[in-house]
């Protein structure tokens, strides 16, 4: 059972604005929007948060897999889905990608809950789209509505994003699109990058979603525990985790990367302290597929946000 925390120690009211975060982003040539919130009991008093572009709409990239996870768990709660049911994903039908089942050669058989795990832990495109197909886009949309995420709209999965890119560039295949996407000589414009047309959200909505998972509000306590475990199994060390170079902290989250978009939303929890949800959405100027400076800056920004929210004047 997740320990609850009250706001007795916290006396600050209103969101913190941290203009120095904007400087961090400018320094590495990205545009960034963030939100941070301390996850407390419902009756814990005023929200303690960091607000910097928190209500600006951003294209989600793989962060859409987080609402899919929640929708999956709610479908399990309602009995619509048996998480231990096995399913086989065949290479010709599944969505391609660099990680997990999406990157494999042969048929793969796994249970729905392990597909959910792979979708989150390694951002497995095949697992994600298989789950989305099984649950249905309507169920995901009902989930975001039910949880009050009014600034979030899920328009499809990775397969749909790839289709938009292929259609909008007029190139016949994904490999050619990705080559163009990663080339600094070209500006690639596509509906896939339009927050009005592609799956989009705001930093505030994502910290709210994480908070609902950590307070057992997103689904049943059992399923929320499952989600916290799965999010804790995410393997990526290069973004938010890179800001915390010590071991007494637990980080659970979901990255998202599409061309210049580099995101991560995560819950950072220090031992014996309330969990803190952080959402960092960035858009880089460079098209290069690997941008370590940007990833490190995301970690540094997350660390700044968490540090600001952890410190509080004692009453």
């Amino acid at each position, binding site marked *: 059972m997740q320990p609850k925390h009250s706001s007795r120690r916290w006396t600050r009211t209103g969101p913190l604005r941290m203009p120095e975060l904007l400087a961090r982003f400018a*320094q*590495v*040539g990205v545009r960034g929007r963030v939100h941070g919130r301390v996850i407390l009991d419902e009756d814990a008093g005023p929200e303690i948060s960091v607000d910097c572009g928190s209500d600006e709409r951003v294209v989600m990239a793989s962060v859409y897999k987080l609402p899919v996870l929640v929708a999956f768990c709610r479908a399990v709660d309602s009995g619509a889905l048996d998480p231990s049911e096995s399913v086989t994903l065949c290479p010709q039908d599944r969505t391609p990608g660099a990680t997990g089942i999406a990157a494999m050669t042969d048929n793969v058989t796994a249970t729905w809950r392990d597909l959910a795990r792979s979708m989150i832990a390694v951002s497995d495109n095949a697992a994600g789209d298989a789950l989305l197909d099984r649950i249905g886009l309507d169920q995901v949309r009902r989930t975001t509505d039910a949880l009050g995420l009014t600034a979030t709209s899920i328009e499809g999965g990775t397969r749909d994003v790839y289709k938009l890119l292929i259609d909008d560039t007029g190139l016949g295949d994904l490999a050619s699109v990705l080559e163009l996407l990663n080339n600094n000589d*070209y500006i690639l414009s596509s509906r896939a990058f339009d927050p009005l047309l592609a799956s989009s959200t705001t930093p505030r909505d994502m910290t709210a979603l994480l908070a609902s998972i950590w307070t057992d509000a997103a689904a049943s306590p059992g399923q929320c525990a499952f989600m916290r475990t799965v999010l804790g199994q995410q393997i990526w060390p290069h973004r938010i985790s890179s800001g915390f170079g010590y071991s007494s902290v637990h980080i659970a989250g979901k990255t998202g990367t599409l061309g210049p978009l580099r995101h991560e939303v995560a819950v950072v929890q220090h031992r014996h302290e309330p969990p803190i949800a952080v959402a960092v959405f960035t858009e880089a*100027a*460079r098209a*290069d597929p690997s941008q370590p400076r940007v990833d490190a800056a995301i970690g540094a920004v997350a660390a700044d946000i968490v540090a600001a929210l952890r410190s509080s004047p004692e009453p």
Partner: protein
Amino acid sequence: MNLLRGARFFVAIVEEGHFGHAADRLGVTQPPLSQGLKRLEETLGVRLVDRSRQGASVTEAGAALLPSMRALLAGETEVLRMAEELTADRQDIQVGAVETLPASIATALVASCAATSAHDVMLRTATSTAIVEDIQRQHLDLGVVEHPSIIGDLVGSDVAILAQRVICPASPQRSPTESIHSLLDRPVATRPRAGAPAVHDLLEDTLRALGIKHGTTTVPDERAALALVVTDRARVLSAEPSTPPDGLIAVDLPRGVLPLRLRVVRRRDEHDRAVLNAAEALKSTLDTYRAAEDA
């Protein structure tokens, strides 16, 4: 309710003394005029005009409000007049361009811009970061910035790719077929990183990818950079097509290697035809300097 519109109707009715004549004067038909006056009276809670067979006569309350209504309309006229003066005063289009845009190309750009309209074109040199901010703040109308740069909500053209040459000290040992590694055997002199951080990082990463290990060194401006080259302490990458100063030579780079990437940027909500035409002119002129495409 639009008070200005109501005031316009009321004053016309009073001055003409007749609904029909007032409607003619305003270029509307009588029904909307009557409705407009009625709406005004309802909003103000005051009867302004008595309607009779003979026409319209102003009430006591209407007479009391008439001077203020006239003042309101006079105020509107003044605002419109001042705005027109301000836009008429804008004689020139303000363009910001980065220092790495060669002077000869900059003058060609300004000439092409000026040819598109009666407005003068004022060119200011600034960093990519500063140009983007200034356009957002309306201190500039257009910009030629280095790519890749964050342009915020501005609209950017496609990338114009200009070939660069390596500026080295003139020396009998230099051969036109020299390898890039032997050419870049000193740090590349660059402007301060903060002016265009992504461009700077891309250059450093590209040099490393090419196996060039001397990196970059920061200089404040072009002359300082050339001074370092002439004393053989640095190299400069330049898109300037003309002959470099005495004591220096410019050596071609392989096609597509270390180009200068530029974009023309403007505000998204820019509606001034002159500015939009100038932006088009800038882009097409830049394109004429583009390195020849691969077959």
